[in-house]
């Protein structure tokens, strides 16, 4: 009896063993967290006083036209910097789901449509958007010039405010970016498993739940989810049509990346413009070479999967309520709903109930527990 049980166990273990190629695929999702690398386009990236200023500004409601909306209204720390709504609501309802700010510094493009090529230029958009904070460069500059504490902290970071409101707005956005660069999610059960697998640490490997392990094998195998959800952040940082309808309401569509590229290239705040602090413009390679194609219509950015369980609802318009709904979407996706001249990547995965549960278990293992951010208490006055 013992003999047969032993044989059965060996068979089960080998069924879920990882090949050398699997190990390499899993290893590509780490190590975590990645080392900090300053943004060359932002001269205050990594600057402690800029981070302090940016943190204050992030929670500052006076940045909005009605004095009631701060960045933190939609980017809630306890929800992994999202808001739990299908579509964000600022001064009015917007068209898209609030993206998480966790690990945002690892992105190449910003926003669902990638209309921005730096974190600081992205940060200006919600401040100025009439549906979000509805503010203006003049209002932001006035606040920074008039409020004694903000003015003092601004001077410590940037020197005296420029006479041009727009320059002050860009500086504010760069301080906000410096703060957002510090928002890095913690290590997860997956990271512990990944490191153990790379080291060949059998005890460490064995601590990872069996269901999550099977889900991971679907993720890197049958599902090929890691074709796009790749790298330590589980995102290739680019854009895809995943068959999510892009009608916002009857007669109105969200063009996604197609419009995003147009906005990017026409923006005076892009990395080819005068506000990029990287004199060599080496940070602008992507902007210089990005190309607009018809297939970009209806493409949206590949989301990071870290702390995904905290960021429901899902997809660019919050159409899918749960992780299970997302897995079902890819399990039953109809190729007819994808661009006929687009990329041929997606096909229905046709997952069984067990496989669906396992893939969800794997996605849940990418959660670090959340809620660890604590806004710092600023006791020190700035004079």
């Amino acid at each position, binding site marked *: 009896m013992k003999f047969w049980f032993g044989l059965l166990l060996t068979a089960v273990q080998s069924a879920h063993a990882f090949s050398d190629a699997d190990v390499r695929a899993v290893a590509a999702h780490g190590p975590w967290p990645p080392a900090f690398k300053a943004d060359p386009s932002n001269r205050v990236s990594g600057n402690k006083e800029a981070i302090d200023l940016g943190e204050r500004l992030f929670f500052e409601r006076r940045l909005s036209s009605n004095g009631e909306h701060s960045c933190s209204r939609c980017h809630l720390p306890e929800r992994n910097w999202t808001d739990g709504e299908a579509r964000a609501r600022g001064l009015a309802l917007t068209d898209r789901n609030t993206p998480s700010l966790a690990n945002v510094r690892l992105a190449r493009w910003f926003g669902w449509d990638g209309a921005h090529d730096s974190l600081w230029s992205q940060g200006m958009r919600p401040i100025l958007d009439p549906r979000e904070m509805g503010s203006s460069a003049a209002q932001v500059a006035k606040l920074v010039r008039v409020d004694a504490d903000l003015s003092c902290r601004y001077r410590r970071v940037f020197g005296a405010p420029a006479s041009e409101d727009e320059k002050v707005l860009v500086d504010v956005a760069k301080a906000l970016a410096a703060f957002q660069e510090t928002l890095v999610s913690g290590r997860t059960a997956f990271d512990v498993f990944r490191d153990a697998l790379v080291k060949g640490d059998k005890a460490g490997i064995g601590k990872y739940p069996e269901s999550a392990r099977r889900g991971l094998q679907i993720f890197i195998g049958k599902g090929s989810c*890691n074709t796009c959800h790749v790298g330590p952040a589980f995102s290739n940082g680019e854009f895809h049509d995943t068959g999510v309808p892009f009608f916002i309401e009857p007669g109105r569509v969200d063009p996604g990346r197609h419009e995003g590229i147009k906005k990017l290239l026409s923006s005076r705040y892009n990395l080819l413009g005068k506000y990029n602090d990287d004199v060599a413009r080496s940070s602008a390679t992507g902007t210089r*070479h990005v190309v607009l194609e018809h297939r970009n219509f209806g493409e949206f950015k590949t989301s990071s999967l870290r702390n995904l369980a905290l960021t429901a609802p899902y997809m660019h318009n919050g159409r899918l309520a749960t992780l299970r709904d997302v897995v079902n979407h890819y399990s039953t996706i109809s190729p007819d709903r994808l661009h006929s001249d687009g990329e041929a990547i997606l096909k229905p995965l046709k997952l069984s109930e067990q496989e669906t549960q396992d893939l969800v278990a794997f996605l849940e293992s990418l959660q670090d527990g959340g809620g660890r951010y604590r806004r710092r208490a600023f006791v020190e006055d700035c004079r």
Partner: protein
Amino acid sequence: MRAGLLLAFLAPAALACELPGGAAQQVKSAATTVVYRTPALKLGAHFAVEFAVCPAPESVRVDAWMPDHRHGMNYKPTVVALGGGRYRAEGLMFHMGGRWEFVFELRSGGRTERLAHSVRLE
């Protein structure tokens, strides 16, 4: 001495399909040879391709695509002629792992020739 000078003048044309600095990939048709070199390919990182074409065409374009996925890159490279049939293409980026194909499009005398070479990125 005279023979030495002559060799020096001939050398750039004769060596046009050899990139300085070592190993390179080679793609050939009956009439044309392309040698090219990339840095170690890395997912999601912009890179440049150095290449030489023999004989040198009137104009050249470089692109890359994933035949299995039926899509190309999201970026359009720019090509700078360095002289002597040598070029440098900048702004390429592979945003997915898998099989990619470099395509060198060479135009001369109103005709276009395409030479392709596959690489695999894990």
